[in-house]
């Protein structure tokens, strides 16, 4: 069958996949464990974008994808979406987060104190080339503080609210089961607050940075001040069928609140939180949230523009789909093009 012989797609795709996997080599539990240990911030980033908190599965996804972040996020999301939702955890309140790091750029000192926590912010970024010469880079031991920082820290916005500096919007009490879930419903605009914050939490880090940075450079209307940046661990409190609340474990979370002077004479706040520790993402996300209100349709900081274009699985998938054959559409355009050319010739005889 001459027609078939020139094709043979099924065999080709199988061998192409084998070629890719062969280059990665066998994936062992040891490799996954080592990845989880060695790359906690990458694991955090993938868990945040996948909306699935499971460092082992995230490390497995990274191993399987050979470190391709978009592939890893897709693997986790496709797994996550098939899992049943057993229960909805209690909301995490800021003042209850076990805080490792919490800083504010708005004040020199804040109630609860500036807690630097683990950071490379003030480190000199020098590549430890001695490792390549056979030496081990051993980090210097930490000297514990004389008085440890309190594990829980108040929210700075609470202080600002008490001092009449920020608006205190009326709070609507929504039963946890009734909170809209963007993974089970389409995202429509104007979006509910829950959908906006959920979309920011699972947005592409690089995408939020690009758009957030454009807002910071002047394409937005509000210049952010970091009101509070916090890295911590949150207890996942769920209710047992017997009625008792218990902690099902802890998840690493990061959150940023940025602020600027609003039109009403009060401070406006922008907020973003995500699974895992990812400071760039939450600062950029909070900046975009701050800029969203009142932004013109189609501007790079308007909510619909931001949220549709920073969806990592959708954006990366569509980008790579252009590799698929498009010869039918192309043929159709070609036909119109030639038709127009012929018509032109007919009109102006040589």
């Amino acid at each position, binding site marked *: *069958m*001459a*027609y*078939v012989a020139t*094709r*043979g*797609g*099924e065999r*080709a*795709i199988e061998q192409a996949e084998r070629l890719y996997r062969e280059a990665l080599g066998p994936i062992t539990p040891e490799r996954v464990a080592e990845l989880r240990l060695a790359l906690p911030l990458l694991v955090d980033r993938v868990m945040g974008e996948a909306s699935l908190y499971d460092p082992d599965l995230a490390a497995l996804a990274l191993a399987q994808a050979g470190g391709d972040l978009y592939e890893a996020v*897709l*693997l986790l*999301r*496709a797994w*996550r*979406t*098939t*899992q*049943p939702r057993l229960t909805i955890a209690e909301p995490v309140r800021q003042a209850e987060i076990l805080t490792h790091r919490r800083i504010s750029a708005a004040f020199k000192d804040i109630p609860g104190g500036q807690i630097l926590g683990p950071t490379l912010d003030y480190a000199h970024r020098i590549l430890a080339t001695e490792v390549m010469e056979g030496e081990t880079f051993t980090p210097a031991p930490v000297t514990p503080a004389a008085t440890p920082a309190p594990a829980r820290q108040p929210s700075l916005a609470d202080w600002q609210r008490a001092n009449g500096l920020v608006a205190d919007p009326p709070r609507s009490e929504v039963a946890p089961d009734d909170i809209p879930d963007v*993974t*089970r*419903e*389409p*995202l*429509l*605009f*104007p979006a509910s607050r829950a959908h906006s914050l959920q979309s920011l939490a699972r947005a592409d880090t690089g995408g939020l940075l690009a758009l957030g940075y454009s807002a910071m450079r002047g394409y937005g209307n509000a210049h952010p001040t970091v009101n509070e940046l916090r890295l911590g661990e949150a207890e996942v409190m769920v209710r047992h069928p017997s009625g008792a609340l218990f902690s099902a474990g802890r998840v690493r979370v990061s959150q940023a609140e940025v602020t600027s002077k609003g039109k009403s004479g009060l401070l406006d706040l922008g907020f973003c939180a995500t699974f895992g520790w990812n400071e760039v993402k939450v600062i950029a996300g909070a900046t975009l949230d701050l800029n969203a209100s009142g932004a013109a*349709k*189609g501007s790079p900081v308007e909510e*619909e523009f931001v949220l*549709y274009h920073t969806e990592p*699985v*959708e954006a*990366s*998938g*569509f*980008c*790579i*789909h252009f590799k*698929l*054959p*498009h*010869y*039918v*559409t192309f*043929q*159709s*355009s*070609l*036909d*119109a*093009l*030639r*038709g*127009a050319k012929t*018509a*032109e010739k007919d*009109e102006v005889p040589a």
Partner: protein
Amino acid sequence: MTLSTLTRPWAAISWGFLDASAKREMRRKMIKAIAVPGCQMPYASREVPMARGWGTGGLQVTLTLLRTDSVVKVIDQGADDSVNAASIRRFLSRVSAAAETWDTLEATLIQSRHRVPEERLREDQVLVLQVPNPEPLRPVQPNMSIARQMHADADYGRLWLVLYEQMVRSGRIMQGAAYPALVNGRHVMTPSPIPRWDVPKLHMARHLTFLSAGREKRLYAVPPFTRVEPLVFSDVPYKVEDHADLVCHRSGLRGVFMNEIPQDGGGSAFEASDSHLGIKAIRRAEGAATTIGPMWYEEGRFRP
């Protein structure tokens, strides 16, 4: 009574991949889509084990429609063994008991990217078209929330304007594939990037067509015997691609949509885009017993 008697044994994935709650949402949205032909229904659009933009919308509809006695055909640009079609078909049979086929006549469920088969579809067949961009208004209004309002108002003036401007600038309508069409006299839809050649096949058809965009989270439908009218001016007839007189250099088929294959030294050869129809024509020429069903086009003319 123990827990295990109340549940089914654990399985890594559900039958047909999607879990029951995802399928329930799909069914509801698909029924709504049938009820309001051509109207885009937003849906959650779960992630599936394929990249967005690679047929995930069509896949979710197909997975929801799958039954144990389904016979599925998957084509990409008309070809059954195109790499992505092969991958989707393999996935479908992997997660269900569905049988695979290349033959349009045997299929009960056809998932397609950018083509409608050349053999007529019957009332017992469902066509699922993969849709990259479900919004016909996108070229004139990239904002989805505003476009949704325009559909509600049947505000399609700017689409007509685009077509008119093409006439003025180029002397003809330049829209290639994805020609916008009015469905049931109410909603303008994009038929997905099928060639203009294929749009009449949806008009008053016997089969049901679903169009689903996974990345954009919208699905819509053309139920059987529903009007699908391409937007045209009353004095400028709708023009399909000029393929009526081309001959397939492999199968000898004529009067079907063709792929153009550039040849060394200039010039082009043509081959039937509906690859399995081509195979059947070759088999028939070789004397094998082969059934070619009734066609939408006869001698290059669409037969209503």
